[in-house]
C-alpha cells in the first residue's frame, strides 16, 4: 500500500530507507568484532568489509520497510518513513534493497572471504524472511528469535579477520542476542498502543506489561555472565571485566526499576531503552579499549 503517488525520489529518501541509525550500531559492533579478533587484516580490506556490512544492514532495512509498508503507515513511530509518506515507490524500495544485498555479499566475499560473506548473506535472509515476513506478525517471541539477525555483525567482523567462527565470536553473538529482547521490549512498553493498532503481537500487547517486565529482568540476568565471558575466554582484559560487570549490574538495576514502576507509567521503560543503547556501545567500546588482541592496524 503506497500512501501517495510518487514522482521522482530524493537521494535522502533512499538513505532513509537504509535505517542509518541501526546501520551505525551494526557497523560499530562489526568494527569491534574485527578489532577484538586475534589476527590482522589489511586496513583497506577491513574498511571494505565494514562498508559491505553497512550496505548489507541498510539493504535488509530497505526490504523490511518494503514489506512492512502497511503497518508502518498505521504506527505513529514509523508513519513518516519514505514509503508510507509517499516519498519512495514500494517496488523501487524492494529493488534497491535486493540489489544492495547482492552488492554487499559480493564485496564482503571479495574483501574478507566466504565465511564472512556467508554469515552476512544468512543474516540478511534471516532478517528479511524469518523475522520480517514470518515471525514479526505471528508471535510475541518475534524479536527474541528475529534478534539473531542483529547479533551477527561482530561475528562477521571476527570472521573477516580470522576466516572462521570460534567460541569468542559466538559469545559476542550471544551478547547481542540476549541484549535484544530487553532493548525492544522496553521500547514496546511505551509504544504498545502503536503495536496494538498495527496488530503486531509484541509481548506487552499479548501478555501484558507485568509478564514483559519479568522477562526483561530475566534476560538482563542471563546477559550478565555472557558479557563478562570474553574476559574468561582471553579476549578482554581486567578493565573489560570490570566495565562489563558494572554495565551489566546497571542493566539489571534498570530492569528492576521497570519492574517496580506501576503498569500505567513508562518513565523507567524509556530510561531503560536509552540505557540499553548506551550499554551495547559501552560494552563493545570496553572490549576494544581493553582487548587482548587489539592492534589498530
Amino acid at each position, binding site marked *: 500500500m503506497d500512501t501517495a503517488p510518487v514522482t521522482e*525520489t530524493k*537521494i535522502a529518501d533512499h538513505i532513509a530507507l537504509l535505517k542509518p541509525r541501526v546501520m551505525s550500531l551494526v557497523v560499530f559492533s562489526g568494527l569491534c568484532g574485527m578489532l577484538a579478533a586475534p589476527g590482522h587484516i589489511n586496513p583497506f580490506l577491513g574498511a*571494505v568489509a565494514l562498508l559491505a556490512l553497512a550496505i548489507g544492514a541498510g539493504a535488509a532495512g530497505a526490504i523490511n520497510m518494503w514489506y512492512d509498508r502497511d503497518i508502518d503507515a498505521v504506527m505513529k513511530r514509523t508513519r513518516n518513513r519514505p514509503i508510507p509518506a509517499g516519498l519512495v515507490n514500494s517496488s523501487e524500495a524492494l529493488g534497491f534493497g535486493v540489489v544492495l544485498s547482492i552488492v554487499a555479499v559480493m*564485496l564482503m566475499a*571479495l574483501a574478507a572471504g566466504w565465511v564472512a560473506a556467508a554469515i552476512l548473506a544468512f543474516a540478511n535472509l534471516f532478517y528479511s524472511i524469518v523475522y520480517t515476513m514470518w515471525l514479526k506478525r505471528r508471535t510475541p517471541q518475534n524479536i527474541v528469535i528475529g534478534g539473531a539477525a542483529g547479533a551477527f555483525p561482530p561475528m562477521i567482523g571476527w570472521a573477516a579477520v580470522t576466516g572462521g567462527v570460534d567460541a569468542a565470536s559466538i559469545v559476542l553473538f550471544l551478547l547481542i542476542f540476549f541484549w535484544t529482547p530487553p532493548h525492544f521490549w522496553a521500547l514496546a512498553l511505551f509504544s504498545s498502543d502503536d503495536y496494538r493498532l498495527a496488530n503486531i503481537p509484541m509481548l506487552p500487547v499479548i501478555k501484558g506489561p507485568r509478564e514483559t517486565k519479568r522477562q526483561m529482568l530475566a534476560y538482563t540476568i542471563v546477559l550478565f555472565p555472557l558479557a563478562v565471558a570474553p574476559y574468561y575466554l582471553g579476549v578482554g582484559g581486567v578493565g573489560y571485566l570490570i566495565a562489563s560487570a558494572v554495565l551489566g549490574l546497571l542493566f539489571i538495576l534498570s530492569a528492576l526499576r521497570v519492574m517496580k514502576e506501576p503498569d500505567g507509567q513508562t518513565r523507567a521503560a524509556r530510561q531503560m531503552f536509552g540505557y540499553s543503547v548506551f550499554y551495547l556501545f559501552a560494552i563493545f567500546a570496553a572490549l576494544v579499549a581493553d582487548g587482548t588482541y587489539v592492534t589498530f592496524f
Partner: protein
Amino acid sequence: MPQSELHDRRKTKNWVLMGALVAFITIVFAVTIIKMAVAP
C-alpha cells in the same frame, strides 16, 4: 525547454548512481590488486 524540479532530481539521481558504480568498480579493482599483493 525550462528544467523542472523533476528533471533536476532525476539528473542528481543519475549522477549519484554513476558515482556509486564508479566507486564500486574502483573498490573491486583495488581489493583485487591488494589481494594479489598479499597472496602467498
